[in-house]
């Protein structure tokens, strides 16, 4: 269970995350989408207590009722693996090339759960089976270079699940994989979250993968959540101009013909240091109002489970 209230992360003057709030119950699957630099990975690292040293975090963060706003490195190390685990974008890079993958997976089992070597091995084997690794017995003894990308990502998922964490943060786990392998990995993550009653935070810019994997989606821009809601509703009926732009920028086949040129959102994500004062999307927004550059819109409920931060979208109080 994650409860985050007004999490902000700053590098000196530059704000990488601004007042992000999240509340996730066991079994819930949240997608974080946005462009590079939108703060989605930073939020993932904040939830792991693995922010760069230069970063300053404010706000309240609690995992399973433990307040971690001011946790020391040691407290965080205890939380990691046991409560919250993470998988990464590049399965090629995330495994030590000189270690057998079995040893890598057995390490947290022995370190955190104090299992004997044979028990750890048995448990690692179960994890390999659970994550759908073929010939798990043999794979335990292999080195990363002997495995395919999809298999490595499965090994990393097994590693993340080793100590039964309640929360799994997946930072672009499918970006480096082939499309069909990516599908299997997202399905695996969905199944694991469901079977284990585990919170899944799925960070991606692949909207199709997000739609398939999560229940709730939060769209991030400039370090803020600009729109949030059930994934089907947000993707079929986006309310924030940024979400609309993001959805329009997807290649689609209409009338049996691929559109020649993709529409795009004008401009680039501004650098952290010179984000606009008001709405972070002002300057790139197609429906900008005079107050947008000055007044920051709050993330307000807009009916149902949805929320949006835009001056155009009126608050709905139920």
């Amino acid at each position, binding site marked *: 269970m994650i409860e985050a209230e007004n999490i902000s992360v700053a590098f000196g003057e530059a704000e990488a995350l601004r007042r992000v709030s999240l509340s996730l119950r066991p079994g819930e699957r949240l997608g974080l989408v946005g462009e590079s630099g939108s703060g989605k990975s930073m939020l993932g690292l904040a939830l792991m207590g693995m922010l760069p040293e230069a970063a300053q975090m404010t706000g309240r963060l609690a995992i399973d009722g433990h307040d971690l706003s001011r946790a020391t490195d040691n407290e965080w*190390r205890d939380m990691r693996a046991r409560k919250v685990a993470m998988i990464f974008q590049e399965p090629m890079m995330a495994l030590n090339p000189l*270690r057998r993958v079995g040893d890598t997976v057995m390490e947290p089992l022995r370190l955190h759960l104090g299992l004997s070597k044979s028990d750890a091995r048995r448990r690692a084997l179960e994890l390999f089976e659970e994550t759908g690794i073929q010939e798990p017995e043999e794979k335990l003894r292999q080195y990363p270079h002997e495995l395919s990308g999809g298999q490595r990502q499965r090994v990393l998922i097994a590693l993340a699940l080793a100590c039964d964490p309640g929360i799994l943060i997946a930072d672009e786990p499918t970006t480096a994989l082939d499309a069909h392998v990516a599908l299997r990995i997202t399905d695996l993550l969905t199944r694991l979250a469901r079977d284990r009653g585990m919170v899944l935070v799925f960070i991606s810019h692949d909207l199709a993968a997000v739609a398939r994997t999560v229940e709730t989606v939060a769209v991030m821009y400039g370090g803020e959540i600009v729109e949030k809601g059930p994934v089907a509703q947000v993707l079929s009926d986006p309310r924030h101009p940024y979400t609309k732009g993001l959805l329009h920028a997807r290649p689609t086949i209409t009338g049996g013909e691929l559109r020649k040129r993709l529409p795009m959102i004008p401009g680039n994500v501004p650098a952290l240091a010179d984000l606009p004062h008001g709405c972070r999307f002002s300057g790139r927004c197609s429906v900008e109002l005079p107050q947008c550059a000055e007044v920051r819109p709050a993330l307000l409920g807009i009916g149902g489970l949805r929320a949006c931060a835009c001056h155009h979208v009126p608050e709905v109080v139920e």
Partner: protein
Amino acid sequence: MTRAINLRIGAGLVLVLTVAALLSLVWTPYDYTVLSVTQKFRPPSADHWLGTDQLGRDVVSLLMAASVNSLAVAFISVGIGGSIGTALGLTASAFGGWVETVIMRVADLGFAFPALLFAIMLAAAFGPSLTNAILAIAFINVPIFTRVARGAANQIWTRDYVLAGRAAGASQFSLTIDHVLPNISATLIVQATIEFAVAILAEAALSYLGLGAQPPMPSWGRMLNEAQTLMYLAPQLAIYPGLCIIAAVLGFGLLGDGLRDISDPRLARARA
């Protein structure tokens, strides 16, 4: 395969040297401790391949026995200095911040000490001995390995597998042992091989100055020293140990270079 030529020559020289040293532990053509006035200054012959020295000892036997000394000193001093230096470098890299700053500045300070000067200092304080020579050579290796280990380790710390290990709850210590050290070992081995060459040269220099191996322990450096006064009478007595030193230094140097080329193919191509 001309690219691996330095590796081959280096490995060959090191192999010959090592075999000679190991062989001398159980067998030398003659007992090099036995002096014989009647046999002195013999030219090379079937009995004495490289002749005999001013005390009638067999030069081949002396050179073989001395190689043990050279290799052992190099091995022990690089081992001690390398271990301490690597541990310091890994510590600096793992902790960062002021710990790293302090360790690296102290290492810089260590670079300021010339090995010979330090050995002379040790000899002045504790008397000349092989142990002090070893300590002096070990001492100069510490900052070298601190720098190399820290530099290589800093690169490994940025790798995703370290991040993944940390995400799985590993401590700095276990990340260092499990991920960082194995992945910088190639770099360390290359460095150690090169430092081996330097250590052999340093031992020869210290022994030449009388600060290393003491009589009757045979040593190439001391043989050079003793041959110095006989330069006009028997120049070959200075040339043989000199050639041995050259062969050993060249051998380890080329081997280290060759190993580096293998461990980092980009470097080899850039140089070629």
